[in-house]
């Protein structure tokens, strides 16, 4: 199989990898493959984002950048609301962005929605990553490991929320960028930077069960203010970050997703392979060649890692299971 490039064995390989991705999540409780055993721990943390409270000050954007040593500039510049003209997504420059939508109930109070990684309970990015560079932890976070990542960008495709982004400006060792739930700060007993700075406490940090309870009580007490939907409570099997809103979430830039978690997504990818096989082959084989040349040049001294990858290719099943 090593040098065999006929379509049958290629198909076999793809199938194996994709099926494994699905398998990882479906059986993670027993096998503990890409995630620790207790990713659904009762104590796992989350954040409740109340979009009816958020004022769109974008202080969270500033704090997030600042705490992750990114170019953040002066906080005063963040009151500039002209950025809302465009719908933005988290990028390599910022792990979180705030968008603005009109409010039919009161045009003078537009709805602002903060976007970052949802830290899914069953993350599609984790199951998609074949080298285990993304992991789900018991504290609710999904974190990317720069050492393991091979830059394949599979996670970008898998994530239903289009969160992981690629550092296109860096030719050498480009990174996958996404919110890390302020891992360092939380280890030091601090709140995530965005939660800490939010002037109106639109972001409430707590155990997931508690913030869901709070969210439900809020809806119960203010049926006029909130729609009866906690986004992220059930979507893709639940997410650590959950949202409240006064307007239909699908009109606020949230994707309409089922309650099924990652395997649903992985399956779709697997099916897609056969539906759109031919055109990308040419393009990506060219890209692949270029990428391979780059990788060779940069990582000439990392022969050991390459050897590992070689093994992975020849024996995908056993290799992925060990990760």
């Amino acid at each position, binding site marked *: 199989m*090593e*040098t065999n*490039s006929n379509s049958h064995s*290629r198909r076999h*390989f*793809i199938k194996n990898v*994709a099926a494994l991705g699905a398998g990882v999540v479906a059986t993670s409780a027993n096998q503990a493959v890409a995630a620790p055993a207790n990713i659904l721990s009762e104590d796992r943390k989350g954040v409740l984002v109340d979009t009816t409270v958020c*004022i769109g*000050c*974008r*202080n969270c954007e500033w704090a997030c950048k600042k705490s992750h040593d990114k170019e953040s500039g002066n*906080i005063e510049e963040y*009151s500039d*609301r002209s950025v809302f003209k465009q719908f933005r997504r988290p990028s390599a420059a910022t792990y979180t962005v705030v968008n603005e939508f009109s409010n039919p109930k009161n*045009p*003078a109070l537009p709805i602002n929605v903060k976007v970052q990684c949802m830290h899914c309970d069953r993350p599609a990015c984790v199951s998609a990553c074949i080298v285990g560079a993304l992991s789900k932890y018991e504290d609710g976070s999904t974190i990317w490991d720069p050492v393991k990542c091979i830059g*394949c960008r*599979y996670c970008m*495709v*898998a994530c239903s929320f289009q969160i992981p982004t690629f550092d296109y400006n860096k030719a050498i060792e480009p990174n996958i960028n996404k919110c890390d739930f302020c891992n360092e700060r939380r280890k030091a007993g601090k709140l995530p930077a965005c*939660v800490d*700075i939010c*002037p*109106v*406490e639109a972001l409430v940090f*707590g155990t997931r069960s*508690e*913030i869901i309870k709070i969210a*439900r*009580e809020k*809806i*119960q*007490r203010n*049926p006029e203010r909130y729609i*009866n*939907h906690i986004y992220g409570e*059930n979507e893709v099997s639940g997410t650590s970050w959950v949202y409240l809103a006064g307007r239909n979430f699908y009109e606020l830039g949230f994707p*309409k997703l*089922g309650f*099924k978690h990652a395997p649903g*997504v992985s399956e*779709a*990818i697997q099916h*897609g*392979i056969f*539906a*759109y*096989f031919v055109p*990308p082959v040419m*393009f*990506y*084989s060219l890209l*692949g060649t270029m990428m*391979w040349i780059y*990788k*060779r040049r940069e990582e000439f001294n990392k022969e050991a890692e390459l050897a590992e*990858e*070689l093994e992975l*290719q*020849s024996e995908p099943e056993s290799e992925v299971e060990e990760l």
Partner: protein
Amino acid sequence: MKKNVFLFVFFLCLLTSLGIYGFQGGKSATGTQKQEKPNIIVKSRQVIKPDNKNQNKLHAKCTLNCKTCHYCEYPTKKNPCLIYCPRDGMVTVFHTPEECPEVITLDEMSVRFGAVVFSHKIHAEMSQMSNGCQGCHHYNTTGPVLACRKCHEQTRIRKDLNKVDLKGAYHRQCMTCHRQWSHTTDCNFCHISKVPNHKQKIQEKIIQISGKEHPKTVEPNKLVFETSYKKGKFVTFYHEDHIKVFNVACNKCHWDENCITCHDPNNKLTHGAKGKNISIKTKKTFDEHHAPCNNCHKQDHCNVCHNDKELEAWDHFKVTKFELKPHHDKLACTKCHERTSKFQKLNSDCNSCHKNFKPGKFNHNVVALKLSDNHADLACESCHVKSRFKDKPVCKECHDDKEFPKSLPGEKIAKKKK
């Protein structure tokens, strides 16, 4: 080996590219799944009387609706399910804006930004048209008005996440209005930046605000609404008459006024607009539009207010031929007219209302004619034949040569001002 690496990278690229297509397909596939489980929300407005036997006596005697404090149907001691905000109707000590603190300096938590010098009195004055003190001091048990920090904790890492922390509480109160009219979230709009002479700047600001009052609200004389009602496009609203003639208190209609009604820079209804022709576009629902009028006009037909042209001010004399001045113009309409579906036409004879006009009982001075001593003791009917008071009084019964108003049964005096 090189070949192997190439193959591997190639496969990954392939997967990525196909994944993009697959993902798009997958998304729409999951999008069609309809499996949203609605949360069950109890929306009962039923009033539950607390069980007197096991309750603390005071609690049971409480006249409030249970739902003012508890959000669940059956609060228990173990789970009282207390509402956090707002607890309206609990403030029992009221203050006028003059009694309130004039300026408050908020600096207990300043880390990144400097203090806020808050013009409390001016805000209290403005709040009189929107919920009063309770608009901000919402979570207040019975008793005096409490400061925000009495209830809201100063730390964000805390046990009770249900109640917003102090920083959040302040900003929510301020920003709900402020960003509506200033359209900005610029922190320095309220915060004094942390410059070296920060303390001095605070003092300057305090001096600047002290003694200031909210300018007197300009009341329009009349407003003409152009509506979409076909059978009567125009509603002419005589604002001044409603205050001065009909004695309607400001907050009877303006009880929930938003700051931007006056302070929106995009809104032309700002200070000094009196006498000018103003055109305002409103975005209100049918009910919201009619709510202030329905305080009194609930039972009136649409055409009482709606007309195909602008209406003249309502005048009691023009419509009914009964002059209200000088004795009846300060009375509430319902003092004479019984309020049914429509104001009924009344008999304009004085004694149809004033049943007790008897000699000695009626002070004739109020009609600006002081009766002479020999007339004062006569029965009313001696001059006002058959008690028809609005007709000319008759002198002929006693004096053949005299006639009203050439001769008077007393002397004219200045009209008594009420």
